[in-house]
């Protein structure tokens, strides 16, 4: 364990509502958290410490803009704590040669578990039927709409990254067939590849959205894709809200032109379109797909590993390729 003076400095970047969950970091690093110095504005705090800050830890989805980055001339690395890092100005990082890391595989299993949970929930109407039972309706009503079986469903995965591949592995024993789309065909993957999402949607009963949000993937699930998926089709989104044209999604669901949806993310969180709140064929979740005690422990290891690797000039654990 390094002594206090030897500990490298890490700037914590977070929105106020995010508490710092990574307790053991302070044993290894000197943490600078502008929000703990309320006398100072963040701006003047940063200006004062700017020259000593080589590494910044970005907690959760806290937006890291080029304005903030410009206050930190000595910055060399942004250590992210999420799987997707669309909240960081990656273009600016690339321009300045700042390294960026993400949560690596810390969240992959939980993200994939949650996808399967949402899918079973939507197809078998678990949350809606649980509500039915809790409201005391079983004795009098008896009947409730039947669900749909998972076996034989054609599942299209949009983005076969670490979460997507874990989803595929889990769904095979349920009797689902798997296909996918991604920027490039993955070598060594036997699932059928589709070059575009509309083609995948046309041949799928279920679309699982778990790719990174970029300019290219913004609203990639649009009206055409939903039409191709069809009125029995189901969409599961654990990626980012803006991957889907949410207005269109609401229209499709309200008009019965889609079978159902399981949504952990939304375009304007924490605001959820109110039309969705009364639909029984959707399952709504407050962006918690990867929030388990176990994944936070794994994340802590990834964050510490990336910071230690950086300060000792070793290869980073989970670098993000900046294109």
């Amino acid at each position: 364990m390094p002594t206090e003076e030897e500990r490298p400095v890490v700037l914590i970047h977070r929105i106020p509502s995010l508490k710092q969950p990574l307790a053991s970091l302070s044993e290894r690093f000197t943490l600078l958290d502008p929000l703990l110095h309320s006398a100072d504005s963040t701006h003047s705090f940063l200006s004062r410490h700017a020259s000593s800050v080589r590494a910044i830890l970005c907690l959760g989805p806290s937006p890291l803009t080029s304005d903030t980055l410009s206050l930190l001339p000595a910055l060399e690395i942004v250590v992210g704590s999420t799987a997707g890092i669309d909240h960081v100005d990656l273009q600016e990082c690339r321009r300045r040669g700042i390294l960026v890391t993400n949560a690596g595989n810390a969240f992959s299993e939980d993200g994939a578990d949650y996808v399967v949970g949402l899918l079973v929930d939507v197809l078998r109407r678990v949350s809606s039927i649980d509500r039915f039972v809790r409201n005391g309706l079983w004795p009098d009503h008896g009947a409730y709409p039947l669900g749909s079986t998972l076996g034989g469903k054609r599942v299209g995965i949009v983005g076969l990254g670490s979460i997507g591949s874990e989803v595929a592995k889990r769904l095979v024993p349920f009797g689902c067939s798997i296909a996918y789309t991604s920027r490039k065909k993955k070598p060594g993957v036997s699932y059928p590849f589709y070059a575009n999402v509309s083609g995948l949607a046309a041949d799928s009963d279920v679309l699982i959205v778990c790719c990174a949000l970029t300019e290219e993937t913004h609203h990639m699930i649009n009206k055409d894709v939903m039409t191709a998926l069809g009125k029995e089709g189901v969409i599961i989104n654990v990626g980012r809200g803006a991957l889907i044209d949410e207005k269109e999604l609401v229209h499709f669901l309200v008009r019965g032109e889609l079978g159902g949806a399981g949504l952990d993310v939304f375009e304007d969180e924490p605001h959820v379109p109110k039309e969705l709140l009364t639909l029984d064929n959707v399952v709504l979740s407050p962006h918690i797909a990867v929030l388990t005690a176990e994944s936070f422990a794994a994340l802590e290891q990834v964050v510490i590993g990336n910071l230690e690797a950086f300060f000792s000039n070793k290869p980073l654990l989970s670098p993000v390729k900046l294109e």
Partner: protein
Amino acid sequence: MESIGVLMACPMNTYLEQELERRFNLFKFWTVSDKTQFLKAQQNNIRAVVGNATAGADAELIDALPKLEIVSSFSVGLDKVDVAKCKEKGVRVTNTPDVLTDDVADLAIGLMLAVLRRLCESDRYVRSGKWKKGDYKLTTKFTGKTVGIIGLGRIGMAVAKRAEAFSCPINYYSRTEKPNLKYKYYPSVVELASNCHILVVACPLTEETRHIINREVIDALGPKGVLINIGRGPHVDERELLSALVEGRLGGAGLDVFENEPHVPEELFGLENVVLMPHVGSGTVETRKTMADLVLGNLEAHFLNKPLLTPVV
């Protein structure tokens, strides 16, 4: 076959009801007010009973129907049919095995995920408008948790196969150890419960398995443990389960079945760590149709003197 009298024990499936009505002389028992009088009047007409997990053919009904030849159950479990009595009287019995295995196993995994990851609770939270940024609770990971299965029959095996894809170690209890299995066998339910995080009831309901989940088993499973019941309500001592959940001695429960269906103990309605289903393990459009076709196929085979499709007796 239009003249053959078939007694349907309770409402179970619209398609089945319509098809029975089309092919046989169907009596709907639940619409009859004076059942004793009805049975007396129809005792020489009724040659088949169609039942399910709610109502079937007990000794009293079997004795009241001297011309009964076959009981065809719209279920895999036959706990509502007096199978021994049927055997004794030469009444044939059929069920709907295999076709519902996958749906029940799917729901078992769905319940595990829903309880551990608090899916229904999250959905309620969002719908009630309580979501504020950063306000969240950590839930429990499913991948890698040890799953204990009571009864490694068709459904138990299907649950195991699915859970393996989540890297869950599988342990099990059954009357005898199964040969050539990589899963770990425990000779008692208490030992199994002490050695798993999630305990699944997937055995038939018999005299021996009634209340197989008792206080001792629940305490062995413990405050982090989760109970999944996709078998039958009476497998679980429901009062013990309730007090364990209320007192926090058990981590959570996913329940598709209850001791006194359709009545669910109201104490469960306010709990976050339970998921409650109205006995819908096989409740998909696809499977209920296949089950109905099996019931119809068994009845037609019987009355055409052909081999039964899925005979038990």
